[in-house]
């Protein structure tokens, strides 16, 4: 990331850094620039060093010396001359930019931050803040940088890391300062859930519920813990409670419908899934489950729901599953040609999914 962003326009701007340079030092400075142009960085550094000895108050000389070290990727050696350049020219943005990068590259993230702030280098600033343990600030600055370069994988990587650190810090704080709160247990429950420690997760959620039984979302999450461990009856119980707490929550209705479906309670499942579809129409997962729930009792309604999944999803895995379910309905109805066509579509979508790069 640092290498990508470095140096782009610094040299052009550097000319404005300084005005008066002693003649002998100016000659050495020019000699250094010439050597740099020949990619002879060692020669350039020698020349710039001699120039700096002759003109110890000339910021441009130190800037060029630091810049040569940066080009050589010797960031440690670049820092002293760049610091000196910054002392001599405290308002020079190119100097601060280069110094900020050098410090960041050498791991002095906290020291780099004020320099990068001054030049508004949001990407590098976000990285420095992440490394300095300021994830909230890092997230903000990396998002600003991403607004300009939304496809930059480096920025996305650091944003993801900053987000994780921010989450972890918040969780640590929550757990250390408020361990016995509903949110504390909820957070622990989520952690256990992620690592598939379902019984432990359920226990945390139960404790959270004991403290705040009306906290929206808690039962939804607990239901998902039970669903993940195939305890469908308990999952349905929790989802049902969530729907009472949040009657307008389409997800809770969908999850309740799906849990009922997994228990083979097709009629009840269909009712709940229809309700979910009314609350938030055209959710493909809801429609797919609805189609399956209605396949036996109301094949026409099932066909409608599954057909809508195909309209919405077109060639995704779920569309393939909808074709498969439709084929099952039509096979039962002895509509063999239709079923055969749907199986063909199912196979076509499966083949697409198996294609390299799909």
């Amino acid at each position, binding site marked *: 990331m640092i290498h990508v962003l470095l140096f782009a326009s610094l040299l052009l701007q550097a000319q404005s850094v300084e005005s008066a340079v002693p003649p002998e030092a100016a000659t050495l400075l020019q000699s250094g620039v010439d050597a740099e142009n020949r990619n002879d960085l060692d020669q350039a550094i020698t020349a710039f060093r001699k120039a700096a000895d002759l003109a110890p108050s000339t910021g441009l000389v130190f800037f060029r010396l630091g810049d040569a070290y940066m080009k050589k990727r010797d960031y440690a050696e670049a820092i002293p001359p760049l610091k000196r350049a910054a002392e001599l020219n405290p308002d020079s943005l190119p100097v601060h930019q280069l110094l900020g990068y050098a410090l960041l590259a050498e791991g002095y993230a906290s020291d780099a931050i004020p320099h990068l702030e001054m030049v508004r280098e949001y990407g590098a600033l976000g990285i420095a803040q992440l490394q300095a343990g300021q994830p909230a600030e890092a997230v903000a600055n990396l998002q600003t940088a991403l607004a300009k370069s939304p496809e930059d994988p480096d920025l996305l990587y650091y944003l993801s890391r900053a987000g994780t650190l921010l989450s972890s810090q918040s969780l640590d704080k929550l757990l250390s300062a408020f361990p016995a709160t509903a949110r504390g247990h909820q957070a622990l429950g989520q952690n256990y859930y992620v690592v*598939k420690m379902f019984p432990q997760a359920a226990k945390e959620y139960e404790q959270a519920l004991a403290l705040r039984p009306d906290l929206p979302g808690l039962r939804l999450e607990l239901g998902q813990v039970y669903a993940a461990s195939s*305890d469908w009856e308990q999952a349905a119980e929790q989802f049902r409670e969530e729907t009472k707490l949040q009657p307008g929550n389409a997800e809770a209705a969908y999850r309740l419908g799906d849990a009922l*479906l*997994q228990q083979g309670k097709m009629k009840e499942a269909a009712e709940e899934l229809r309700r979910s579809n009314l609350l938030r129409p055209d959710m493909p997962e809801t429609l797919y489950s609805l189609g399956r729930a209605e396949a036996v009792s109301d094949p026409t309604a099932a066909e409608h729901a599954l057909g809508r999944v195909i309209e919405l999803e077109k060639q995704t895995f779920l569309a393939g599953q909808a074709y498969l379910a439709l084929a099952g309905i039509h096979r039962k109805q002895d509509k063999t040609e239709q079923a055969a066509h749907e199986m063909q579509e199912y196979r076509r979508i499966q083949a697409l999914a198996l294609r390299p790069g799909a």
Partner: protein
Amino acid sequence: MTRRDLLRLLFSLGLLPAAPKLKSESLFQAGPLKGVDFVLRNSPTSRKYLIETMPGGVALLDYNNDGLLDIFLVNGGHVRDPMRSPLSFDRHDPVYWNRLYRQNKDGTFTDVTEQAGLSNAGDVNYGMGVAVGDYDNDGFSDIYVTSFGKNVLYHNNGDGTFTDVTAKAGVAAGGWSASAGFLDYDNDGKLDLFVTRYLDWNVENSKTCGAERPTYCPPGEFPATTNILYHNRADGTFEDVSVPSGIAAKKGHGLGVAFADYDGDGYTDIFVANDAIEQFLFHNNGNGTFTECALDSGAALNENGKMPSGMGVVFQDYDNDGLPDLLITQLPHEPYVVFHNDGRGSFSAQELETGFGVLSGKSSGWGIGLEDFDNDGWKDVFIVQGHVFDNVQMYDSSLRYREPPLVALNRQGHFEKANPGSDLPVAGRGAAFGDLNNDGWMDVVTTSLGERPQLYVNRGGRLHWLTIILRGVRSNRDGYGARVQVNGQVRFATATGSYLSSNDKRLHFGLGSAESADIEIEWPSGIHQALRGVKADQFIVVEESEHL
């Protein structure tokens, strides 16, 4: 009116027995088999070689025709850690022998392995499963043992001894065989042999999965392989017809196998339970060839549209509509599968509607039987369970390596969990079903890794039963492939099903309160035979009649 409608009508008129209330006590008394000291030695290693978590089978057969079921148990072998070439599983060591136990009149068992000539399992063969059938129609049950390595066919000499006839018969297979079964696919009166094979696995391509928490790799990590069909030439030899029959056209991860004529065309079809890919339904075309049609028939994917990790399978009629259905065990977090036979050659996944799915979400199932354990006229389910990974709790703390079995009673097509009679958790694998004490109530023998087999003796009750022993004349002597209907219930004659195991070939029917039965038999030869008003509560031998 469909058969199902007719049965419902009969039920409403009181002509079929009412289902008894679910008893809180178990149908079974679980315990060890008296006189059986066999331990299934799978030899788990740090390398997590996949073979070591997969054995082993059990067969219930009457090898000496004394009317009592005997028990044959397949052992694994000694797996070195690490394995080295040339392979040896130390099967010459008696602790790794397969074992045959003869049942005595008092219900105890005597180890007759050595005197029966069954002690040499072959050092290079790691044992898996067993199939039983009278392939030469001499009236004595023969034994086929599958392995990772070579399979062995033991011919029953009729004098209490067996002879290894593998080389002559040409049925050694090779690779990794799993379940096997005898069937007469061409209705020529001679039993043929089908062998599932699991993976193209060997020591060289073996690997361990799980990085920091090493465990067994899923089957997808290894190449798929073909199943084998051997045609019986009727001269003591078999011909490998896997390629010309079309069986070898499909590569899979075959574990379980079951047979039935699902479309009523008079030819036995073959279903293979594949692990983590689509299941295979080989439709018998009646001309020596098969067409794999599971996906188009609706018998390849579960009700959630996913590929089951098929392990064990049974192909019998659970809802008394006269058509054979499929029940398949698999890994947790996807329900055990029910493919209901809808007629016209198609199936629909119905594990959710039948209540079967919700009973199985957290469990890993292997051996399975669909038998009428309470004799109420509806076939119930017994499944032996236990996860593949011995360290599964490190991956998902809601799962268990060792589990008790699952018993589910059939309430007119809907399954309800019942007390299995033992909550002892084991790494269950094989299961065979039969009436060990000839009391008219079906018992179960199970195997589990590293442990002795377990017997589940049916406690019995007051309801009536009938057990039919088929004696084919024009058809194969075992009558495998016959469709037998008793008071509206149907069974397809076979010893094959479950996982790696072979069941009592006698056909058991629960009759409920009925004191007599009408029997109709469709023999593989095409002969139709009917018996009316047969008294209940007996074993009846039915010899195939001479006339169509």
